[in-house]
């Protein structure tokens, strides 16, 4: 799992440019799926047990947040806009990587007052060239963080844990799932960070009966952190609500029962800011009861996202427990 996470998180895959990640995933799941297709937007769909009666869509997004070049000045420095939600404070001094391995440093205009917060307008990219003609990128090119994966005991740190951790959980679940009565549609989605766009279109095409997203969530266990009931190392979180999703209560109940039966430590999550693919899956076509299994993660949307290996393993166990047994939800709550 650690090695899988290393390969996945170090891959280049900002929203709209997920090809490298998709190829990696395809390699990993080759032979595990009965059907493998790519959607018009570039999401990878891997279906297991197509004869299954209930269609369960499991979504994990392949894309990571990034930057898009908006201007190149005469000296070859580039200005940029965000792809997904970025806090400019977390960018200064970091490195970015573009397609074809092109690298750059994120610099900041001279700050007379160091207590002033950095804004996007203060930042630029330095490609190590001296004039515009030598700049290796064009306006419109997209880059992401450049940072290697590292582990401290069970704590794993990398850029793009959001949501390569979810992708890893999906892949591992596919590997370990012995039997399932359902038609499971593993959807490795694109463009989640810019508006859940891949999941919306994948859900329409796959037309599932139940939707489960796999994503990271924030924790409340850091100094003066958000007041949240989720902590690193206490198990996967079963999401009850986030800013755009009211998880189907019957699905939440089922997840809780499966976690308890499989003796997987779990947490209950209410996230105030942020959402996942599940929120658009729920409102597809005539409606799809949906929920989310979250991997607790500190420092979300920074180059050093931190998860706990036990939580990741727990998510695999929980998802497998859910998928290997019936999912009769009964009347809506």
């Amino acid at each position, binding site marked *: 799992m650690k090695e899988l996470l290393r390969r996945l998180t170090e891959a280049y895959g900002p*929203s*709209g440019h997920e*090809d490298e990640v*998709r190829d990696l995933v395809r390699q990993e799941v080759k032979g595990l799926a009965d059907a493998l297709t*790519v*959607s*018009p*937007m*570039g999401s990878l769909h891997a279906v297991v047990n197509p004869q299954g009666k209930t269609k369960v869509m499991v979504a994990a997004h392949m894309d990571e947040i990034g930057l*898009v*070049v*908006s*201007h190149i*000045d*005469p000296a070859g420095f580039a*200005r940029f*806009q965000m*792809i997904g939600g970025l806090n400019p404070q977390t960018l200064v001094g970091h490195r970015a990587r573009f397609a074809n391995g092109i690298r750059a440093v994120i610099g900041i205009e001279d700050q007379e007052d160091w207590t002033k917060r950095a804004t996007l307008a203060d930042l630029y990219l330095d490609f190590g060239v001296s004039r515009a003609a030598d700049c290796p990128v*064009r*306006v*419109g090119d*997209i880059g992401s963080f450049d940072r290697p994966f590292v582990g401290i005991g069970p704590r794993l740190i990398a850029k793009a844990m959001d949501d390569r951790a979810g992708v890893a959980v999906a892949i591992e679940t596919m590997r370990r799932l012995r039997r399932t009565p359902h038609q499971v549609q593993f959807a490795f989605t694109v*463009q989640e960070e*810019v*508006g859940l*766009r*891949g999941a*919306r*279109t*994948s859900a*329409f*095409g796959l037309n599932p009966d139940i939707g489960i997203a796999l994503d990271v969530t924030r924790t409340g266990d850091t100094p003066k952190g958000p007041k949240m009931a989720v902590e690193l190392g206490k198990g996967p979180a079963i999401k009850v609500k986030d800013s755009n999703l009211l998880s189907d209560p019957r699905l939440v109940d089922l997840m809780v029962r499966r976690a308890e039966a499989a003796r997987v430590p779990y947490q209950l999550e209410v996230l105030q800011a942020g959402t996942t693919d599940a929120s658009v899956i729920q409102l597809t076509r005539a409606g799809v009861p949906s929920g989310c299994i979250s991997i607790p993660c500190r420092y979300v949307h920074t180059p050093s996202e931190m998860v706990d290996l036990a939580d990741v393993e727990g998510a695999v166990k929980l998802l497998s427990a859910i998928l290997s047994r019936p999912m009769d939800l009964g009347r809506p709550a």
Partner: protein
Amino acid sequence: MPAPAARPTRAHLRLLQDLTEAIGVSGAEGPVRAIVRKQVEPHADTVKVDALGNLLVNRRGAGRVRLRVMVSAHMDEVGMMVVSVSSEGLLKFEAVGSIDDRQLLGKPVWVGADRLPGFIGAKPIHLMSDDETEQTVKVESMSIDIGSGSKTAAEAKVKPGDRATFATRFRRLGPSVMAKALDDRLGVATLIELVQNPPDGIELLAAFTVQEEVGLRGARAAAFSLDPQAALALDCTPANDLPSWDGEENIAYNTRLGNGPAIYAADGRSLAHPGLLEHFIHTAESQGLAFQIRQPGGGATDAGVIHVARSGIPSLSLSTPARYPHSAAGIASLSDWRDTARLAHAALSTLTERTLRRS
């Protein structure tokens, strides 16, 4: 079919004038729809108006049809809606779509289907304190005066719900045009031309959409019902290419007037389909057509909702630049506008299914 003409004709300018002077505020696009209908009906294979007022027109290009392509341009403009009539016969109004409050004061307007001439009144500077002149007047404090003098007289002519726009007449200024609603009557005019002179090998699904300015509403329903294989949104995007105050390089120009039609790599609601993006750039370069890449950042076009319709539709946005959007008058370059039609026509005529595939 021959490529669109590089130079604007009198008929082109006439059509632009009719389109920009029409009142078509979001949700009440009727007058614009009527003009478009008249232009396209003689050429269309089918014409339909849907539940929201989108005008959906089919036209097959010459030769074997390779692709069904939706091309959209929105008929609506930002404007105003009358919300109440005061006891003095003045009209309180609210903006429809986003208009900076500072663009409204002291402007002449046309109100209602009869285009009653009115104005948004402003206090004379002589009677205000310095403090007061430094405050932005909010729209809640403004009124439109149509010269009625009393509530009854006003209510005989106007009612809450009526729309109003800036009273701006179209003018040609040498290589430029000045008009209201260049966003997106420029796109509408381009799309009319594509219906009249369709690209080869394409089944053109021309969608003259409604309510783009209030949330890309019309395009959402239109994309679902047309279910095309690819889509191109023709819109109008700001050119913020004026010099900076401090002489520093302008790094937030978005687009520049005179640099050609603007192709979008990314905006606030979509990331361009890479195959379509490359195809349009390649077409422009190989045919020596002017183009620029619109700066990535915020903003949106109908493509924002079209590309996520159903199972996903490969989409691209192509806009004609104009200065001073969402105000009483914008300025656009005629060559940029002509080149938009030329690039759209050339690129669509050579578009194949292979361009749309993802590995």
